[in-house]
């Protein structure tokens, strides 16, 4: 009897230790990256680093503004493209589509959610870049290589399609059919029911899906690295190239030890990514709680 209880205790303590350790990973990562970016933080203020546009590591100039803007442009673009398309698709699948189509389409979407980003990058290079270069950009600008914010946005958008569609379909399927019937029996059309009742009820879930999609797009590295052009100048339009933060980090890792402060600057960019994601998560969680209370 005693042995059983002892075993329970010992194993419990072990599990607790593991849990505490893995939970504190957020903190550990934060501290680790912060320590590594200390050298550059001692030389420049955060404000300087974030607002300066000049990136000349050899001369000791480390301005992250172009990269931050690049990240925001590309992420924003992808969300702008993906959210409306995915919402309409998810609504179609859950409210309108014949059951047979749904049975065929949804597993396919779920499967594609597992395809690694590098494949989306490959597709972007082969398919999207030439389209942007030859057919889209010439209508708006004189010259474009195709490696632009737009291309990055499209590739990221397609990458997050499966994610958003599958979550939103799941969310819509949790809405009781009686709620639909209540609206329909008042003489509302199907679309009115969707627009005024279902989307409203599903809003917290949809919001959460979009938050997840934004984090995914925001931190994506290899796919954007392959299609954004990587020019360290803040983009002014969707036909300019961009150089998102993760791409900066990935592109320069090889040589970072050979230039003073360079490794610290790159670690700072990882630290910045982490902080932005954390803040974004906290804010969206707070908003979500507000909505859920209001919607309850």
């Amino acid at each position: 009897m005693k042995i059983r209880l002892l075993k329970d205790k010992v194993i419990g303590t072990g599990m607790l230790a593991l849990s505490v350790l893995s939970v504190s990973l957020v903190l550990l990562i934060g501290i680790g990256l912060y320590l590594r970016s200390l050298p550059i933080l001692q030389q420049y203020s955060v404000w300087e680093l974030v607002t300066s546009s000049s990136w000349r590591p050899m001369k000791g100039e480390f301005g992250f503004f172009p990269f931050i803007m690049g990240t925001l442009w590309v992420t924003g673009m992808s969300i702008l493209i993906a959210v409306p398309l995915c919402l309409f698709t998810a609504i179609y699948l859950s409210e309108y589509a014949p059951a047979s189509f749904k049975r065929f389409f949804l597993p396919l979407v779920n499967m594609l959610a597992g395809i690694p980003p590098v494949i989306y990058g490959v597709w972007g290079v082969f398919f999207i870049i030439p389209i942007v270069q030859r057919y889209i950009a010439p209508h708006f600008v004189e010259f474009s290589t195709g490696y632009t914010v737009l291309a990055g946005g499209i590739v990221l958008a397609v990458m997050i399609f499966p994610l958003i569609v599958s979550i939103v379909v799941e969310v819509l399927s949790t809405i009781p059919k009686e709620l639909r019937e209540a609206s329909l029996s008042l003489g509302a059309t199907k679309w009115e029911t969707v627009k005024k009742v279902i989307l409203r009820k599903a809003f917290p879930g949809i919001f959460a899906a979009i938050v997840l999609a934004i984090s995914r797009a925001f931190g994506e590295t290899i796919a954007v690295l392959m299609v954004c052009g990587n020019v360290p100048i803040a983009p002014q339009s969707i036909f300019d190239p961009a150089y998102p933060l993760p791409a900066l980090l990935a592109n320069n890792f090889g040589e970072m030890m050979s230039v003073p402060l360079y490794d610290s600057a790159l670690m700072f960019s990882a630290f910045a990514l982490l902080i932005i994601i954390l803040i974004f998560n906290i804010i969206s969680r707070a908003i979500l709680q507000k909505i859920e209370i209001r919607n309850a």
Partner: protein
Amino acid sequence: MRRRKLEEWIAKALMLFSTAFVGICLFLIIGTVVVKGLPYLDWDMVTKIPDGGYYFGRSGGMLNAIIGSLYVAGGATVLGMCISIPVALYLNVYLKKSNAFARFAKLAFDVLFGVPSIVYGAFAFSLMVYLGVRASLLGGIIAVTLLVIPIMVRTLDEVITNVPKDLKEATLAMGATRWEMAKVYLLQIKTGILTAVLLAFGRGVGDVAAVMFTAGFSDNIPVSLHEPAATLPLAIFFQLGSPIPEVQGRAYASALILTVCILIIVSVSTILTNKKRK
């Protein structure tokens, strides 16, 4: 009335367009990889390691990268399992639902889930510099382990919450200790564990950003944890950047191999989950 009908009609048209668009894009991805990759696919690719000058278009294969990816993803999945199963059990079975630490931990894993893989890579790299470990199989495994822990914990968490509550009450009523109850749970969530494993493995095989600086790259199949290891996605990335058409073609062929692997993994896990649901 006319306006309402028109609105309904427009909405439907938009939905059909969106669905077609999304469907076609996803279809095109698979299509591109298959059409471009198939002509370059041969047995050498999956059975040989690169000969000298492989990246300039000479003969050889990608076996080093395939094995490397399997090692990295496999090692990370095993390590991840050793950590995430106890953690998920502890949070759900040992602790009460209302427990403050359990709630905080779930929140932390949600946050970790959203942390980009490149951040894990950078952190693992810093850790390696600190510990004096060079870019190697071990480094890659550590980075990917960090990446898959939140994925596995979250998946298991969901699986465990779906176990009927009666089970907990029934086993506790029989006078079982929490550890004995945890073992009962472990049996109940066997398929769930497999799903989590497949999910983590798929993620590990496909990820580039975490292994980029931690695993290194090598033309040989690593024989120890301290040797650098090539990974398939990274090999695709390198080859696609080459100006030589032959090498680019191999990038597509490698992409095809990777896609097929992932699709098999995902299909198996989907089938398993569906079976469990029924």
